[in-house]
Each structure stands twice: as C-alpha cells, then as structure tokens.
C-alpha cells in the first residue's frame, strides 16, 4: 500500500483489491447458506460451492420449514416485539431527550447521568431479577415482557443520541412557536420531531438490530411455542432437525432475509446519521 500521490493507478488497484478481498470474506458465509438452501440434499454434500443448477435446484428445504416449523408465527412475534419496542424507544426516548436538552432545571445533569448508566451496564446482568419480577406480575411467556425489556435496553442510548441532536435545533424556531402561543407539547411534536428525523432513523437501526437478533431474553423470558421469536425459533429448529440440512439451511435463509431487507432500506439513512455526527 505505497501511497504517494492522491490518485496513482497501482495504489487505486491495491485499495480495491484489499476491499474486495474483505468484502468476499464478509459475504461468503451468507452466500454459502443461500445457494445451498435451494439445492437437493445430494448436491449440498457433493458440491457445496456450486450454484443451484437445473439438476440440483430443489426447494424441499423451504417446504419442510413451512410445513414443520411455525415460522410465520415466529416471524409475526419478532415483528410485533421489534416494532412495539422501537415505537416506545423512539417516542419516549425523544420526549425524555427533549426534557433534558431543552429546559434548565434542578437535577437535569443528575438525571442525564442516571440515564447514562444504562449505556454502559448491560441489562442482561439483571436477568435473574427481571425473570423473578416478570414471574411475579404474571408476564413470563408473553411478548409484553420482551417489549418491556427491549424498551428499557434501548432507551438510554436513544436518549443520549437524540439529546445531542436536539441541541442543534435552532432556538429561534422554538421561540417563534412559543410567541405564537404553541404549547410545549405542540412545539415538541410539530416543530422538533420532524427536524430530528434523520437522528431518529439512526437510533431506529441501532435499536432494531440487537432486538431482532437477541437470543438471551426470548430463551429465558418467553420460550413457549406461542411466543418464540424468529431467532429462538431458528435455534430450536436447528436443534431438532440437525440432520435435515435442507430444512436447516432454508430456515437460516428465511431468518436472514427480513433483516437484510430492513438493512438495505435503512442503510443510507444509517450512514447519513452516523456521518452527520449522531454517534461520536
């Protein structure tokens, strides 16, 4: 990587070779799963790296998954939990961030520090007591318990990022609203929220990925068949069908798909949010 001038040809080539190499390393495993999920059992074993062709194309794995596993149910559970937690984190997080960044009041700094504890200390360490508490109020094996835990887990970072952002919203605008007689609630919901939408999208992506992918809390708080999330469902399915490679690979492909789509939809927003200073 000898770099002298800003754009010499060998240097550009070297940079691209390095990046392509790493891109291949990053995508190779995903590629392996997806191509093999669409092949017949024999073809999976004989030539794991070959693309599915006329003789080897077979969707038997997907058929097994859709008939044996409860994947539509798991998928619905994951969707409900993720969307509900996300809504709570974004709305309540933005409201709290507004209270912290907009007004000066006694205890402001202390409240900020109190909320910041949650950024550094992982909520998992409270699992033992969370399970006891959820059992005491009869919330074990409910999606509500997961939504509550994920909301609590997502709120601290959301409040931190959003309040940094709200400090950049111009005071003139808010004061103009106040002179026009808008209530503080109207100012927040109609003036401030639309302006911080990019930051909220960034927070949404950061909050969503760990919730969708979490295995720990579904395993502990809601392992019943009716409340399994996709991640836990795929894990149990793999355990039961270890030898049915078609089905396992198909279930993994199905688990990859939704996050991948969400990521592609949000990735531009994510990068814009990060580079504009939301996470620094």
């Amino acid at each position, binding site marked *: *990587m*000898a*770099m002298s*001038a*800003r754009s010499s040809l060998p240097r550009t080539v070297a*940079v691209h070779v390095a*990046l392509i190499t*790493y*891109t291949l390393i*990053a*995508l190779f*495993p*995903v590629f*392996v*799963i997806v191509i093999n999920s669409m092949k017949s059992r024999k073809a999976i*074993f004989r030539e*794991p*790296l070959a693309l599915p062709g006329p003789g080897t194309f077979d969707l038997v794995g997907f058929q097994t998954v859709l008939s044996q596993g409860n994947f539509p149910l798991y998928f619905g559970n994951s969707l409900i939990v993720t969307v509900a937690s996300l809504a*709570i984190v974004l709305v*309540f*997080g933005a*409201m709290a961030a*507004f*209270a912290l960044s907009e*007004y000066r009041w006694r205890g402001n700094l202390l*409240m900020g520090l109190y*909320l910041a*504890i*949650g950024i550094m200390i*992982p*909520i998992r*360490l*409270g*699992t*033992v*007591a*969370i399970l006891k*508490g959820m059992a005491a109020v009869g919330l074990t094996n409910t999606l509500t318990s997961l939504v509550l835990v994920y*909301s*609590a887990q997502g*709120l601290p970072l959301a409040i931190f990022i959003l309040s940094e952002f709200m400090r950049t919203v111009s005071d003139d605008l808010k004061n103009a609203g106040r002179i026009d007689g808008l*209530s*503080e609630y109207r100012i927040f919901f109609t003036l401030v929220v639309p302006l911080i939408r990019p930051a909220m999208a960034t927070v949404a992506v950061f909050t969503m*990925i760990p919730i969708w*992918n979490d*295995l720990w809390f579904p395993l502990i708080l809601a392992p019943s068949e009716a409340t399994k999330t*996709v*991640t836990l469902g*795929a*894990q149990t399915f793999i355990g039961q069908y270890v030898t049915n490679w078609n089905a396992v690979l198909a279930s993994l492909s199905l*688990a990859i798909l939704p*996050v*991948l789509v969400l*990521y592609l939809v949000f*990735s531009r927003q994510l*990068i814009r949010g*990060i*580079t504009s200073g939301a*996470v*620094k």
Partner: protein
Amino acid sequence: MSERKPFRWHIPIFLAPAVIIYTAVMIIPLFATLDLSLYTTGDDGIHFVGLDNFRTLFGDPRWAKTFWNAFWNNVWFFLINMAVQNPIGIGLAALLSLPGLRFAALYRSAIFVPTILSFVIVGFVWKLILSPIWGIAPGMLTAIGMRHLFEPWLGQETTALITVSLISVWQFIGIPMMLIYAALLSIPEEVIEAAEVDGITGMAQFWRIKLPLILPSIGIISILTFVGNFNAFDLIYVTQGALAGPDFSTDILGTFMYRTFFGFQLQLGDPNMGATIATVMFAIILIGVCLYLFGIQRRMRRYQF
C-alpha cells in the same frame, strides 16, 4: 426563563414514561440482582448469608476453578477481539474514506452485513464451513493444495477459543469500521490540505495527522468492545452449546452465569449463585468503564473544529 414561573409540568411529563420503564425494568432488577447475591435459597426458605456466596465462588476449589477458567477465557476473547477486530476495522475505514474511491458505499454496506446477522445464523454457518464432515473449509484448502493445514478448529481444546473469537471478529468488524469511518469523514478538509501543502501524504498522513485526530473514537470502540465481550453469551451458546465445549475451553462469564442460573445436565439451577456471578461481571464491567472514563478519556485531547 429567568423569573419565577409556575411549576413546569411538561418537564416531568416528557420524562416520566422513559424514566419509569428504565427504572422498573433495568435499574431495579440490576440492584435486585446485586441484592440476591447476598442470599441463599434452601429447602426451608431464603436466608441472608452476607458475602458467603462470594466466598464459595472464590474459595470453593470447584467453583473457583470454573470461575477463573471462564474469566481468563473471557480475557483472551477480549484481547483477540481488540487485537484483530479493531485494527482491521480502522484499516478498512481508512481505505473507505480515501477521497474519490469508487464503490465505497457498496463495500461499506457489504462489510457491515455480518453485523446485522443473528448469532444463530453466524454460529451455524461457521460450524458448517469449518465442519470436517461437510467441509467447505477442508475442500477449499484441498483446492489450493494445503489440505494438511486443516484441523477441526472448533472441536479442539487448543484452538476452539481462538476460532470462536475470530468468528466474533468477523461478525462485529462493521462497528469499528463505521464509527472510525464517520470520525475520519468529520476531519475538516483544511487540515488535510494543510498536511498536503507540507508534503505529508499517503500513509504518513494517516499515521501522523488522521490517527491522532480519531483517537477519541478509538477509545469509544475499545470500551464498547470491552463491555460487549465481557457480556457475551450468544455466540458461544450457538456454536459450542451451554457447556462451552470442548471441556469448557470456550467457557466465558456469560455462559458460566447461564449454566449456574438455569442448571445443566445433573446440576440444579441456583439463582443466588447466578446472581453472584452477575454481580462479579457487573464489578468487572464497572471497573473497566471507570478506568476508561477517568484514566484514558480525561487524558485524551479533544479537537474542536
């Protein structure tokens, strides 16, 4: 807002929902867990035992052996992540932020893909690739004539921990890459131009100009890696199972806590010992975070542009 005004009700109303959920589901259980570690549950109910659980954890040879094994494995897990993931992440970010690079968005999105995948997928696909039976890895090594290098890396005590750590690196490299990339982009053009006028370009420019400017971001990455690694559980659970095999060689604090709390095979679950391990993890993470906040971050110079 200087003169005395009526109580501003909107402030507590804005704060209440978030603070209530956060306090009820996170803070109270965290402290309740610390408290649980001071009790023991017997046939005749719950007793306060003070620090006895900690004495058992560190004093009883069987407990102590498992704990220290998990602790040192966890330290290795963290060190491998730090030493491999962050330098590669920084390197990728440095390449991606080169001015005028084509396809930068494409590379960036692709390299971030493993980070969005769930542990279940990551664990299983690497088990498949590295499996001696299905053998994509052995097959590929055969193709380049290096079949003799293949070993069942996940199944051997000597290599399992390193292999799992490298899988974790593969999965999370997107995070340092993105954060450093953002930091590099926020370096003002004038600083870079001034360096170029002084004849500092290419690698020298990276080492002497950009790297010092992104040190605060590197600090944040390090502490994120630390907290994440000492709280890890999922990857080990999906690749090696709750027993963190072979022979506990990949056991870390998260899997140890899980087994203790829920029980495994013949051992019954013990919430109080589980809480004790969680308390020790809490202390480790707290010490790490404080060392970072008071030891490193305060000494770091921040540049305002």
